[in-house]
């Protein structure tokens, strides 16, 4: 067959697939701008022309949403700050030192990332219950930290190893202490790595649903994913306000999509880079 026609056909196929893949996201946005009257018509409305912002007004005026947003922000900030601090220290240790027990620690860091929440949430629930930390920021943060510190450490390890040791050694010859050399020389060079791994940790914590649904059972302590689940469910009891539910979904998804775009290049590249060459 003519290669030109083949390429054009491929392009057309790609566009069709793109439409299929983006459609749910488009439909979420589309519905979020429609009134209940338009949504409940038997023929769907495919373009939100003459749309309304009333769904967003309703959601933003919902006290539960504001409370959940606050909870999500607090949990995410606490976890992010501690996670980055712990992971920088740990990655420094495994990237810059060879010491007894290093292999065991690295193995643990890798293994732990494979464990599914399913395999541990019963025990984590019982642990927090026994010290009265269910429905608390501290309780959920303890579990989340254990969830994100390993992969953040592992990711930063690559970045720390990427900064030549010689730079630090030069600084030490000039009179810096070992930690001082790290703080003044390596740490500033780690900035891109910190941003990337920070965004990854953010995405994990911000999106987390399984553990939150078990640990945070009180309405007032719900994070955004739990709020969205409850919001979609309560409206299921009566007539579902799909416009509002979709507006809620948009609000939950937007920060994630924005941050995701920042790191997307690294997501595929990191995995493959070593695999083909090595």
């Amino acid at each position, binding site marked *: 067959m003519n290669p030109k026609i083949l*390429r054009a056909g491929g392009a057309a196929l790609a566009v069709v697939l793109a439409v299929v893949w983006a459609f749910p996201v488009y439909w979420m946005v589309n519905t979020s701008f429609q009134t209940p009257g338009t949504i409940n018509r*038997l023929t769907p409305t495919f373009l939100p022309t003459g749309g309304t912002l009333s769904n967003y007004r309703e959601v933003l005026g919902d006290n539960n949403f504001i409370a959940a947003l606050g909870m999500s922000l607090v949990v995410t900030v606490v976890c992010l700050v501690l996670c980055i601090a712990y992971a920088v220290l740990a990655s420094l240790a495994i990237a810059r030192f060879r010491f007894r*027990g290093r292999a065991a620690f690295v193995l643990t860091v890798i293994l732990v990332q494979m464990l599914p929440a399913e395999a541990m949430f019963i025990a984590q629930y019982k642990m927090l219950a026994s010290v009265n930390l269910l429905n608390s920021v501290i309780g959920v943060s303890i579990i989340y930290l254990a969830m994100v510190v390993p992969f953040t450490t592992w990711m930063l390890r*690559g970045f720390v190893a990427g*900064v030549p040791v010689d730079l630090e050694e030069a600084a030490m010859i000039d009179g810096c202490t070992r930690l001082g050399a790290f703080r003044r020389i390596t740490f500033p060079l780690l900035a891109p790595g910190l941003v990337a791994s920070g965004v990854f940790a953010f995405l994990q914590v911000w999106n987390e649903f399984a553990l939150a649904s078990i640990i945070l059972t009180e309405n007032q302590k719900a994070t955004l994913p739990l709020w969205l689940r409850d919001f979609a469910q309560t409206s299921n009891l009566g007539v579902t306000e799909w416009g509002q539910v979709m507006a809620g979904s948009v609000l939950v998804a937007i920060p994630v999509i924005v941050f995701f775009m920042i790191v997307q290049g690294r997501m595929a590249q990191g995995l*493959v880079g070593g*695999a083909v060459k*090595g």
Partner: protein
Amino acid sequence: MTTTATATGSPGAAAGRPAKTRKRRSRLPYVLLIPAIVTLLVGLGYPVTWQIINSFKEYGLAQQFGQPSEFIGFANYVALFTDAVFWQIALRSVAFMALTALITMAIGIAFALLMKAIPTWSRIVLQVAMLLAWAMPIVAQMTVANWLIDDRNGVLNYLLSLIPGVDLVGHNWLIEPLSFFGVAMVIITWASVPFVAFSVYAGLTQVSEEVLEAAGLDGAGRFQLLRLVIMPIIRPVLVILLLLQLIWDLRVFAQIQLLQDFGAGGERYDLLGTYIYGLGIGQGQFGAASAAAIMVLLLTLAVSSGYVRRLLKEDKES
């Protein structure tokens, strides 16, 4: 969305020479590790230990209310293994994992090959669309899916009913178990294909043109090129991707739980995650739930051992 352990910024590769100069014994690395180790011990170490111990104990509702829990050896495990329901759910989970992972891989590889063969503008269109799907938080994915398949006003039923002879308006996709898991599989595949497609595409771009040209000169056809040249070169990538998909498709608690919440619910729709949840949190049978959780743990370790070995190799090389 699946964020991952895999994003190991690769810049490390260039700077081999790991601290040979610092061989002398120092306590510093141990001090640096303290916060991370404490975090892991508290958040994971203690719970997992508790779980292992309690999987050998009688720990049900009576123990919740103060009765001492006694060691009963492997009784919890024996009860699980002789329970037809557990086997059914375990096999269903494994089948769901394997089928979803294979379908995701097949579609992802096909997408990557397509992306390699088409003009740049159309490739970017497809990439942007896939990024949107990939970035969606799981809860938003499931909520939107629930709206798409809504029996009365859902756009899926509307579009399908446009096909002559098909009338699905009012059809509820979450009632029949097979249809329920079909919906879950479609959503999970939709969300996981982008990662596979991007990764395989990145792998394909590293296959050198010269090799392909040489094979072409030797008379290889399109399919021979694919099967005998390209596939072997990107095989390591494919193996890792398949392992990751298997690991991730085993941990689909959130998706199944949400679909149960939105739909009719009930244990006919359980996979291992929701089964353990129901057993432990729902019925208060913590001993039995712990034993089931340990089984999931072992299953995960078995599936992921290949991937773990690869990462360890990477650590040695850097």
